[in-house]
C-alpha cells in the first residue's frame, strides 16, 4: 500500500539559490503560480467584455467580488473597504489552491503547514499593526474584558492574551489539518479500491465519490472560514468590539 503522506512531499523542480537561501521552484511553488494565474485569468480575462449583461465567466468573477465585498462590509463595515483587496486575494488564493488540490495528480499547497502558517501570520501581524496604529497603546485594552470583577482581571488578561496569540496557530492549523486529512483519506481509500480489486473495490470507490464531494465543500468552506476570520480579526483591530 502506498504511503498516503507521500503526496505532501516537496519536490524541487528547478533548483534555485537566492543569496544563500534555497529558493528552488518546487511542486508547491508551481501550484501557487498556477493558482495566481487562474485567479488572474478569471478576474481579468473573464471580465474582458465588461458587458452590461455578463457572460458566464464574468458572472463568476462578479459573484466572487460581491461575495467577498459583502463579507467585508457585513463583518468590518465601511472602514474595511481599504483591506478588501487583501481579503479578496487571500480568499481567492486559499480557494483556488484548495480546489486545485482536488484535481488528481495535483499538489495541495494549503496542506503545507508552513504555507497556511505564513498566511495566518501575515493576517495576525497585519491586524496587530493596524490595531496599534489605530488605537496606540490603547489597543492593549482589547485584552481587558469590560465589566469583569477586579480580582479576576489579572487572570483574564492572561487568558485573553493567550487566546489572542493563538489566533495565527488556530487559523493555520484549521486549514492545514482539514486539507491534509481529506487528501490522506482520499489516498487511503484510493489504495483500498486498487487493493480490493474488481470484485471488492466498488464499496470504497462509492465512498470516495461521496467523499470527493464533501472535500470540495470543505475546500470552499475552509477558504470562506479563513477569509471571514480575517474579517473578524480586522474588525476587532479597527473597532475593538469585544
Amino acid at each position: 500500500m502506498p504511503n498516503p503522506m507521500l503526496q505532501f512531499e516537496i519536490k524541487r523542480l528547478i533548483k534555485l539559490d537566492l543569496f544563500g537561501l534555497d529558493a528552488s521552484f518546487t511542486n508547491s511553488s508551481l501550484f501557487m503560480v498556477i493558482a495566481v494565474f487562474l485567479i488572474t485569468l478569471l478576474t481579468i480575462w473573464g471580465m474582458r467584455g465588461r458587458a452590461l449583461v455578463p457572460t458566464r465567466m464574468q458572472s463568476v468573477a462578479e459573484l466572487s467580488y460581491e461575495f467577498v465585498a459583502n463579507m467585508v462590509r457585513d463583518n468590518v463595515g465601511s472602514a474595511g473597504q481599504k483591506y478588501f483587496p487583501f481579503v479578496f486575494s487571500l480568499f481567492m488564493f486559499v480557494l483556488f489552491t484548495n480546489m486545485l488540490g482536488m484535481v488528481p495528480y495535483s499538489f495541495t499547497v494549503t496542506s503545507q503547514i508552513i504555507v497556511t502558517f505564513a498566511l495566518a501570520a501575515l493576517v495576525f501581524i497585519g491586524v496587530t499593526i493596524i490595531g496599534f496604529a489605530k488605537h496606540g497603546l490603547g489597543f492593549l485594552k482589547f485584552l481587558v474584558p469590560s465589566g469583569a470583577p477586579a480580582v479576576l482581571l489579572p487572570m483574564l488578561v492572561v487568558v485573553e492574551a493567550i487566546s489572542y496569540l493563538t489566533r495565527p496557530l488556530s487559523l493555520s492549523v484549521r486549514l492545514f489539518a482539514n486539507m491534509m486529512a481529506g487528501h490522506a483519506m482520499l489516498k487511503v481509500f484510493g489504495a483500498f479500491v486498487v487493493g480490493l480489486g474488481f470484485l471488492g473495490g466498488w464499496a470504497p470507490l462509492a465512498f470516495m465519490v461521496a467523499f470527493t464531494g464533501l472535500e470540495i465543500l470543505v475546500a470552499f468552506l475552509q477558504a470562506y472560514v479563513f477569509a471571514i476570520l480575517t474579517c473578524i480579526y480586522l474588525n476587532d483591530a479597527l473597532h475593538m468590539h469585544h
Partner: protein
Amino acid sequence: MPQFVLQDFAPQLIWLAISFVALYLIMARVALPRIATVIEERRGRIASDLDQAEQLKHKTDEAIAAYEEALAKARAKALSIAQETREALAAEVEAEKSQAEKQIGEKTDEAEKRIARAKSDALTHVNEVAGEVAEAIVKELIGGNATKSEVNQAVSKAAVN
C-alpha cells in the same frame, strides 16, 4: 510527515511571498477596480433606466389626464349643442305653428264670409225663382198676364207672411 521538513520551508515561503504579492498587486491595481467599475456602471444604468421608466410613466399619466379632460369637455360641448339645437328647433316649430294657425284663421273667416254671401245670394235667387214660378202659375191658372212687378210684390208679401 513531509510537511515538517525544515529544508522545504524556505523555498515555499519565498515562492508564497512572490506569488501572493503578485496576486495582491494584480487584484488591487487592475482586476478589482475593473470589476468595481463594471458593477457600478450596471448599477447606475439600472437606476437611470428605472428613473426613465418613472418619468415616462409620469408623462403617460399626464397624457391620459389631458385626454380625459378633453373628452369631458367635448362631451359637455356636445350636450350643450344638442340642447341649443333642440331649443332652436322648438322655437321655430312654435313660430310656424302660430303662423299656420293665423293663416287658417284668416281662411276660415274668408270662407265664412263667402258662405254668408252665397247664402244671401241664394236667398235672393229663391225670391226670383218663386216670382217666376208664381208668374207661370198665374199664367196657367188664370190665363192672364201678371206683370213681373205685381208678382214680385205678391211674392215678397207672401214671403213676409
